């Protein structure tokens, strides 16, 4: 279909594309009628609780569950060894596209050795969660503590015994990218900046914790799992394979999900154990990870140390980047998405907005006796952007250039595309220049600078930060999961049906966690078909009811899932017009659909309501010639054909005030201008950016999983792990530039992670901007008062 025709379809007067509409799910939620996995009342329900290793590394010399099994209300006690005998496996979290990557076999519950404090070791299933916890306390374990590897540098040290002896060392993966000529570029540079950056370990802290309810029907052999997951089909595949059940006998339902952010795209041993218990008992079993166990069993992320260098000419031209990344994973590479994508993305995106041609990046991922790490919102981008954007600011300062001007001189021009970054990433349809111009105007940048100067005289230290970014969204099958052999669908699908009354059912393989996926899919379907929004219902999150898909992750839902909806809706529209043409004895090209009615394309005269097509097409076939067989149900799939990702771009601005006596940072205001291509629902896109920003700001200033030398998490409660709350967060101004992607007809890219990816970078730049008069700088996150005062030399 031509660009013109697509535009005609999507941009006509009553189009829902580009319109803010409220979400149907919102009304339910404000009435307290959300339905989360823990909300379902199920007869004869049992509850699971877990004994978790108190040690970061210890052999299980002996485990005695007899006393636990006798406790009141207990239906089942199972050790890791017993579970391992019951299921297939173990899991090995490697992808074949990463040559040299290695991971130790991982059992859903530890069998003879626990490798992180919090690893599940045994499970109790009882009539209530309280009783299950009581019984867990009666399990007796004899532990033989082993040395724990907690520090990344120590993990690298050949003198440190490997956590998994069979692997030979603690290195999960090494990767190098090198354009060549990097050393020469640095040698020739007028300005070289070198810095070491530290990034603290984070965890997602979704408000609804991981929750899974499994029910196995012995009579039919069907396993029904209701779970707070972003990726029902993947869980279906992995759990079926591990439990030895055929996929088609496993149904995965993801009801309302109380936040996920990537946390819930992974497979967890305790969840698998819960499902196994349901199979063993033939009764429904539920597991809700409580907050304390969430901190030590949810995936972690972000623990990196990066040495970064930038080479710049005297005229402010970036010549080269050179980065060395040491990434701290956990005890195992998380199955099946692995623990190495974060480091890989840091290599991909550092310096990504810029036109330099020389680039080198080395990444080493090491195992640690900590919870496994894996993909968490904006994977690697907060680190890569923080490194790159800080170095750009430092170079600008060394040359006496304004940070905005420095970026103007170096970003890819808006007419440079398609292009390839020096890190080897293919980019297209971007708008760095336009975004920068828009940001500068919206921030009132010049006024902020004058105000900053005036306030400095009075001892008030404000900082202004800028950070450009690129963001990989909507991964394709030629990317890591696809070429790496993971059981994850990188394509997605929509089945769209015309119901007898003229209503539309739109079943999609992507999922909803409150960001508005369902609403956006309905907007696309309704617009493409020419029906009112109220006529469309979107079904998602049930493997029995939707076509096979990948769920939601990597900001893919609208870009991939939305395109599938568009194409399926277009196919249904074509069939409807064909049938209408036969009934009306007209040409399909002379007809259109508007407001749920078939109309004349010229003049708009109403000819046939869709309900008529529905009635005839489903019931009154006699009104059609025998040669016409209505189908009225169309499935389309969509995927990227060549690219690893659809990369987007944008820029953040931050205005902060630093109290140089206390080291406290006040976030005054935040701006984002980003390009996610065609925006379907502006309010939902804005809110994704805002929420993502705050998640990033939390990581930049507050959040940190603190480990002691013995591998114990010392701050694993919500009182001690500091998530961002309302009083500390700024208002966030969001604007969009829309450069449609050429890989799809809809032209939409991903937006969900763009706030998180660069918020840490911009706030670190803003803080450092405030500290410039003192010659102090910070390159450690979270940027705590301690970090700032140490940099200032005040403590």
């Amino acid at each position: 279909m031509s660009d013109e025709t697509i535009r005609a379809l999507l941009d006509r007067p009553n189009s829902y594309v580009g319109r803010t509409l409220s979400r149907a799910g919102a009304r339910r939620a404000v009435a307290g009628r959300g339905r989360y996995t823990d909300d379902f009342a199920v007869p004869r329900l049992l509850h699971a609780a877990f004994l978790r290793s108190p040690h970061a590394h210890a052999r299980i010399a002996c485990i005695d569950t007899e006393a636990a099994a006798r406790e009141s209300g207990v239906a089942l006690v199972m050790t890791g060894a017993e579970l391992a005998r019951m299921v297939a496996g173990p899991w090995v979290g490697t992808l074949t596209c990463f040559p040299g990557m290695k991971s130790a076999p991982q059992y859903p519950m530890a069998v003879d050795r626990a490798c992180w404090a919090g690893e599940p070791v045994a499970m109790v299933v009882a009539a209530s969660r309280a009783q299950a916890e009581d019984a867990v306390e009666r399990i007796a374990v004899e532990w033989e503590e082993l040395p724990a590897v907690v520090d990344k540098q120590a993990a690298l040290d050949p003198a440190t015994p490997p956590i998994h002896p069979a692997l030979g060392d603690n290195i999960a993966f090494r990767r190098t990218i090198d354009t060549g000529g990097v050393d020469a570029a640095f040698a020739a540079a007028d300005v070289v900046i070198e810095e070491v950056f530290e990034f603290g370990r984070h965890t997602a802290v979704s408000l609804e914790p991981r929750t899974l309810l499994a029910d196995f029907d012995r009579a039919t052999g069907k396993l029904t799992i209701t779970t707070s997951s972003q990726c029902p089909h993947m869980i279906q595949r992995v759990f079926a394979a591990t439990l030895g059940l055929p996929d088609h006998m496993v149904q995965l339902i993801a009801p309302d999900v109380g936040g996920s952010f990537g946390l819930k795209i992974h497979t967890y041993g305790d969840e698998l154990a819960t499902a196994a218990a349901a199979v063993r008992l033939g009764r429904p079993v539920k597991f809700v990870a409580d907050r304390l166990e969430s901190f030590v069993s949810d995936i972690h992320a972000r623990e990196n140390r990066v040495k970064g260098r930038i080479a710049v000419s005297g005229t402010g031209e970036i010549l080269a980047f050179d980065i060395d990344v040491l990434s701290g994973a956990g005890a195992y590479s998380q199955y099946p998405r692995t623990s190495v994508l974060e480091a890989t993305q840091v290599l991909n995106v550092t310096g990504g907005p810029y036109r330099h041609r020389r680039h080198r990046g080395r990444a080493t991922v090491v195992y640690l006796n900590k919870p496994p790490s894996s993909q968490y919102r904006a994977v690697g981008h907060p680190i890569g952007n923080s490194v790159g954007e800080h170095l750009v600011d430092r170079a600008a300062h060394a040359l006496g250039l304004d940070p905005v001007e420095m970026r103007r001189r170096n970003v890819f021009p808006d007419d440079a595309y398609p292009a390839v970054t020096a890190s080897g990433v293919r980019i297209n349809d971007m708008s760095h220049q336009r975004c920068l111009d828009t940001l500068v105007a919206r921030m009132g940048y010049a006024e902020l600078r004058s105000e900053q100067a005036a306030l400095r005289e009075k001892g008030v230290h404000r900082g202004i930060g800028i950070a450009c970014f690129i963001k990989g969204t909507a991964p394709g099958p030629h990317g890591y999961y696809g070429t790496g052999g993971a059981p994850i669908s990188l394509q997605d699908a929509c089945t769209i049906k015309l119901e007898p009354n003229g209503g539309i059912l739109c079943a999609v393989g992507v999922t909803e966690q409150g960001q508005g996926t369902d609403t956006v899919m309905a907007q696309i379907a309704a617009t493409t078909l020419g029906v009112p929004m109220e006529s469309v219902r979107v079904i998602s999150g049930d493997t029995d009811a939707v076509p096979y898909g990948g769920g939601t992750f990597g900001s893919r839902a609208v870009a991939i899932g939305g395109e599938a909806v568009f194409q399926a809706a277009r196919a249904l529209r074509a069939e409807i017009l064909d049938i209408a043409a036969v009934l009306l004895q007209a040409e399909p090209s002379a007809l259109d659909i508007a407001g749920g009615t078939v109309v004349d394309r010229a003049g708009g005269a109403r000819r046939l309501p869709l309900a008529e097509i529905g009635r005839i097409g489903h019931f009154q076939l006699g009104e059609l010639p025998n040669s016409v067989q209505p189908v009225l149900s169309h499935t389309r799939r969509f995927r990227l054909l060549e690219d690893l990702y659809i990369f987007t771009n944008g820029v953040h601005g931050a205005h902060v005030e630093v109290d140089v006596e206390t080291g406290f940072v006040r976030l005054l205001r935040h701006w984002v201008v980003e390009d996610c291509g065609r925006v379907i629902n502006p309010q939902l896109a804005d809110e994704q950016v805002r929420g993502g920003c705050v998640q990033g700001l939390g990581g930049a200033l507050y959040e940190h999983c603190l480990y002691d030398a013995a591998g114990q998490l010392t701050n694993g409660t919500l009182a001690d792990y500091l998530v961002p709350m309302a009083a500390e967060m700024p208002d966030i101004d969001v604007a969009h530039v829309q450069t449609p992607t050429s890989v799809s007809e809809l032209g939409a890219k991903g937006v969900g992670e763009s706030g998180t990816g660069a918020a840490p970078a911009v706030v670190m730049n803003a803080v450092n901007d405030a500290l410039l008069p003192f010659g102090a700088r910070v390159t450690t996150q979270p940027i705590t008062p301690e970090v700032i005062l140490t940099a200032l030399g005040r403590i």
Partner: protein
Amino acid sequence: MKPRRFSYVRAESLAHAVRLLGEHGDEARILAGGQSLMPTLNMRLSSPRLLIDINRLEALSGIALREGVVRIGALARHAEVLRSPVVARHLPLLAEAMPHVAHVAVRNRGTFGGSIALADPAAELPACTVALGAAFVLESAGGRREVPAERYFTGLYETARRPDELLVEALVPVEQPGSVSVFMELARRQGDFAIAGLALHLRLAAGAVGDARPVYFASESRPTLGRSVAEAVMGKALDGPAVEAAAAAVERDLAPVGGAHASARLQLHLQRVLTRRALETARRRAAA
């Protein structure tokens, strides 16, 4: 995170409550607001055999002014103290501290007595009571006694209350004309446990400090009266040199413990900053 099993009894009278405490001692816990107790039970950090719910004991509630002393019942909820016109008028130090205590929902249940009895080192109220020269009334089967706040907080989560005693009320002398108070704390987020804090109450006569009670909290294991800091400003006007001398004296009075969110050296530094800022604020308030 479900608690271990325990027995539960609702105290019907003060006498009933102290009798139970006498019988069970350390095996029982008083359930008042529950805002600090329940998390420890839910996390299985503590397993009392018996919870004694005192929430219905009217005798322990209320805030009243009588002869220059504000009586705050042990069961006075933080929200009540925050809204109390008596506190606002007569105990401005406390009024200034209350918005820092946790959050709305916690303040609606948490009690004055609970905060005093727990003696969390980062808590606001213990420091305020020491700064204001308050006294606490304890009751046991053997009778009543009063303990001055300055002697009440004996160590980390340790107080002068014996296991068989119930904290009944606090008696807080009203802040006199000619006195000025400043409450300051630094916390990473609104409502968090403070990482440094200062409850300052001082008397000013003819521009000179008559009696200074700077009470530091959050950095020490218990609210700590800064005697050297007080000495540095005694008899002086709160001018630059006096404030600097006071800030320099902080390290003689404090031995910060450090914690997850602040090292000891950070806490000492912040207490110096708070000392300066509080004294400067006191000067401005006295002038106004």
